[in-house]
């Protein structure tokens, strides 16, 4: 037991270095593309260069004759179908949902859609031969922009008769969660403040660093698929559900997965096609996408038009918020594509006490890449809008942006608080997070510097951006999902096996791809069971090992998945207690549990849980009437979401002559409840911040008028590098969540959700005296410069240049 004595008093809360790292830093990682199997064939996809076209003929003969080509298939070669890229969340019963087949034979509805697949002995030969497939396309008119799509003049899917997929509304008066928003707006129009704005959430690309790859081995009794996915369990289910294969004959493995950010939360055409080809040929098959294919055909994120109306009294007390969204789904409704913008319904009202609220969301189909979850998924869009609006309100009232927020936010003594959208926030302390952030940031000093620069007419102005965000994490209570017509539940599963040698295997249904679950789950179990951190092994991402799970997305893994682990551990302790009592010849009631041991109260007699594990392995001596084993599993379904929040402060220097902006400092204080591993939390926040900052400043997925993705490589889709970013100051305040045993709230998306409005608010704040009150994202130097020119050429306070018309 010496190892136990050496370990920290509690693992939870310590900066444990990650277990995962050894293989990752030495190049022993198991990426899907590293897998080579005997006789393996390689696939290359033939994709449509057109956004919308009829296929009038496909000639595969030249490709079929190319060196080492084994087969060329089109959709016609699979009359039985290849499965379906399913939409699991129809947001209304009437939702217009075009069929999404992995390979199409008659018509393509977006560029990049797959029309044929070439199979060869090597990837290079397959790619060469793919160039030889001759497809005759007859181009059709394409609709690309969501607002254009609303007109229904050009149809993305002519047979559907409309581009409008679904309309979804939440109205606080109708729901009984608040007042009538129209009345609030009328009152503000008559005698108050009305802020009406239109914002654009540009389209983004998740751009995980590991291109997606799939290997299928059909040679065993079971078909095994290795794939770079966030959702091995959901994928297995959907393969079975849409191909007719027996679920028990499919094993899906997500080996090491190189990032996802929602981008690998999908069942993809490429996965279905690789599966079909492998089964057809009876040979292992591999497909790995190029980066260009990834940027074009992996799903995109965001892409919303937002029309917002905020009503307030003259002193800046908010009275109502009306949200009207038009969300571009792309050509097909992705797995949760329709639901992502709807997630904003509970978030636009954010941390503020709006008495009346209405959320309207219209989803539309276009001839563009499909759109689905990207880090934050619906919540960054909402947070951006409300945090921009609160700054506008502050400007209108003439007070500091933090003052207007404080005036309207939920005070810490008002929790639990039921929002106007009907969500009950369990805990939070916006005052504490804000106070700490201001201190770390040097808020007052920076405001003083800003005033000096303004007064002196410094060409480089300083702007301070505020974002006091909240989000909902821990997707999700199954009953809530059911009421929203989501196709699955939101529970999570875990099982724990006590091995006879004292080691512990933890099987989790979550599927990490960089988040460090192996480390964090080990810390949790080490504390709970009183075993050394090193003795805990966390297994995941293989449907044969972790047979039950709902995978990793929506900051759910810790809040839902780790809670299942805790509950399984508690069951083990309960079971072990019976054995311990028997071994100690004591009554179970007389036993005390602590630090991995059962003690007989008032004596020095005791037995460790690992000794109990060994005793149950031998099972030579155990109580009558119980089964010889203490392993346990648990499924946890949360009652509600969790609501992390934080205060993010950003200082930007903006050159009013060139439009160049430079981040000077960024401070965030996040309240994510109890923290398991601060090191991992900081990493999550840093990475999230840069993704959110990138939306504000650099990233933009652009199609030309023909529907060709202009930003189709890393040359044009500009991910920030180390040289573009700065070091951050991150801290935490803690108000534990009451929805789970550990008091955690989730942290995966916080940085991304909060940072985008903080940056844009900072730039606008810098330029407000110049008459600029909005700049459309990404705020490139050109856009900033144009906004300034336009403001100068008209008069201060009335520029719309650079903003959404």
């Amino acid at each position, binding site marked *: 037991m010496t190892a136990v004595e050496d370990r920290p008093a509690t693992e939870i809360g310590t900066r444990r270095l990650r277990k995962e790292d050894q293989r990752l*830093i030495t190049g022993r990682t198991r990426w899907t593309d590293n897998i080579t199997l005997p006789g393996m064939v390689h696939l290359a996809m033939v994709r449509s260069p057109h956004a919308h076209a009829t296929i009038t003929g496909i000639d595969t003969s030249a490709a079929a004759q190319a060196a080492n080509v084994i087969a060329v298939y089109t959709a016609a070669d699979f009359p039985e179908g290849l499965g379906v890229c399913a939409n699991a969340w129809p947001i209304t019963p009437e939702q217009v949902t075009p069929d999404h087949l992995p390979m199409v034979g008659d018509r393509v509805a977006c560029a990049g859609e797959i029309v044929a697949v070439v199979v060869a002995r090597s990837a290079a030969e397959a790619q060469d031969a793919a160039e030889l497939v001759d497809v005759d396309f007859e181009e059709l008119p394409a609709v690309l922009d969501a607002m254009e799509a609303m007109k229904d003049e050009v149809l993305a899917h002519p047979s559907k008769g409309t581009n409008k997929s679904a309309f979804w509304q939440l109205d606080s008066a109708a729901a009984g969660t608040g007042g009538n928003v129209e009345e609030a707006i009328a009152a503000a129009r008559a005698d108050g403040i009305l802020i009406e704005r239109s914002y654009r959430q540009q389209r983004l690309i998740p*751009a995980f*660093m590991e291109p997606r790859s799939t290997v299928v081995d059909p040679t065993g009794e079971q078909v095994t698929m290795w794939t770079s996915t966030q959702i091995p369990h959901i994928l297995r289910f959907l393969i079975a559900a849409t191909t007719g294969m027996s679920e028990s004959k499919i094993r899906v493995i997500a080996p*090491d997965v190189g990032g996802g950010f929602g981008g690998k939360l999908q069942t993809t055409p490429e996965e279905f096609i690789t599966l079909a080809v492998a089964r057809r040929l009876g040979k292992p098959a591999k497909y790995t996408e190029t980066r*260009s294919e990834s940027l074009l055909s992996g799903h995109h994120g965001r892409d919303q038009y937002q029309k917002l109306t905020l009503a307030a009294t003259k002193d800046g007390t908010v009275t109502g918020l009306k949200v009207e969204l038009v969300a571009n789904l792309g050509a097909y409704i992705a797995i949760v594509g329709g639901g992502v913008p709807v997630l904003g319904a509970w978030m636009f009202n954010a941390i503020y006490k709006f008495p009346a609220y209405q959320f309207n969301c219209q989803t539309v189909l276009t001839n563009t890449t499909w759109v689905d979850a990207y880090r934050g998924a619906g919540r960054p869009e909402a947070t951006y809008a409300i945090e921009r609006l609160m700054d506008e309100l502050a400007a209108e009232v003439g007070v500091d942006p933090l003052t207007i927020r404080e005036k309207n936010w939920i005070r810490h003594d008002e929790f639990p608080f039921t929002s106007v959208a009907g969500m009950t926030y369990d805990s939070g302390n916006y005052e504490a997070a804000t106070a700490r952030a201001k201190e770390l940031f040097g808020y007052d000093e920076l405001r003083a510097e800003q005033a000096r620069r303004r007064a002196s007419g410094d060409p480089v102005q300083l702007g301070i951006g505020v974002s006091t965000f909240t989000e909902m994490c821990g997707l999700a209570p199954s009953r809530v999902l059911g009421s929203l017509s989501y196709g699955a539940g939101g529970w999570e599963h875990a099982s724990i096996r006590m091995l006879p040698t004292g080691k512990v295997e933890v099987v989790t249904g979550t599927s990490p791809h960089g988040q460090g679950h192996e480390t964090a789950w080990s810390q949790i179990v080490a504390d709970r069971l009183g075993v050394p951190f090193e003795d805990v092994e966390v297994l995941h991402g293989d449907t044969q090992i972790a047979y039950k799970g709902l995978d990793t997305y929506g900051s759910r893994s810790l809040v839902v998945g780790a809670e299942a682990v805790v509950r399984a551990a508690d069951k083990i302790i309960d079971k072990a207690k019976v054995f311990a009592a028997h071994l100690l010849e004591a009554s179970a009631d007389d036993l005390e549990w602590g630090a991995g041991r059962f003690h007989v109260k008032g004596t020095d007699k005791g037995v460790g849980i690992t000794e109990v594990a060994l005793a149950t392995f031998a099972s030579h001596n155990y109580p009558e009437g119980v089964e010889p084993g203490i392993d346990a599993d648990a499924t946890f379904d949360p009652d509600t979401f969790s609501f992390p929040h934080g205060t993010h402060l950003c200082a930007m220097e903006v050159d009013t002559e060139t439009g160049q902006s430079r981040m000077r400092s960024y401070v965030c204080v996040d309240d994510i409840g109890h923290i398991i591993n601060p090191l991992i939390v900081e990493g999550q926040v*840093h990475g999230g911040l840069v993704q959110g900052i990138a939306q504000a400043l650099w990233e933009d997925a652009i199609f030309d008028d023909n529907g060709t993705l202009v930003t189709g490589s890393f040359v044009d889709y500009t991910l920030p*590098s*180390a040289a573009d*970013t700065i070091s951050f100051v991150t801290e935490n305040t803690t108000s534990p969540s009451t929805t789970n045993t550990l008091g955690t709230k989730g942290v995966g998306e916080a940085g991304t959700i909060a940072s985008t409005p903080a940056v844009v608010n900072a730039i606008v704040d810098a330029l407000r005296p110049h008459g600029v009150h909005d700049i459309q994202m990404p705020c490139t130097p050109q856009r900033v410069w144009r906004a300034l020119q336009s403001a100068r050429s008209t008069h201060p306070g009335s520029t719309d240049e650079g903003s959404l018309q």
Partner: protein
Amino acid sequence: MTRINVTVDGVKYSDEVEPRTLLVHYLRETLGKVGTVVGCDTSNCGACTVHLDGRSVKSCNVLAVQADGHEVTTIEGIGSGGELHPMQKAFHENHALQCGFCTPGMIMQAIDLLKDNPDPSEHEIREGLEGNLCRCTGYHNIVKAVAAAAKAGE
């Protein structure tokens, strides 16, 4: 096909390669050195970074035939005698990786960076890593790790 003789991670290899074969594909597919990865098709991401005669190169940007007669070091060859290279250690200790996909290239680039400039400022570290993209870490801890490795090497 062209014959090349190349030393990779201290081992001599002699192979017939197609003239168009990229070094990264030779490493991965012929030699099974899958520690080096491919993240893009435009030489932007740096995931494939290795050392050619001790200097970092993007191995997707070098033909295998160009490595003929030269020495290549990959992420798999930088540790010695079962010990991690100080840069690997620094990445681990500073939590400079999450998914780890960019990590091999990032470590190889960082080693080269310190070779040029053993005592870089934060700015110099950031500039020196400009050709290597990471989507997970926000670079904060990568920069910290490189600074820590520099300090440890003093």
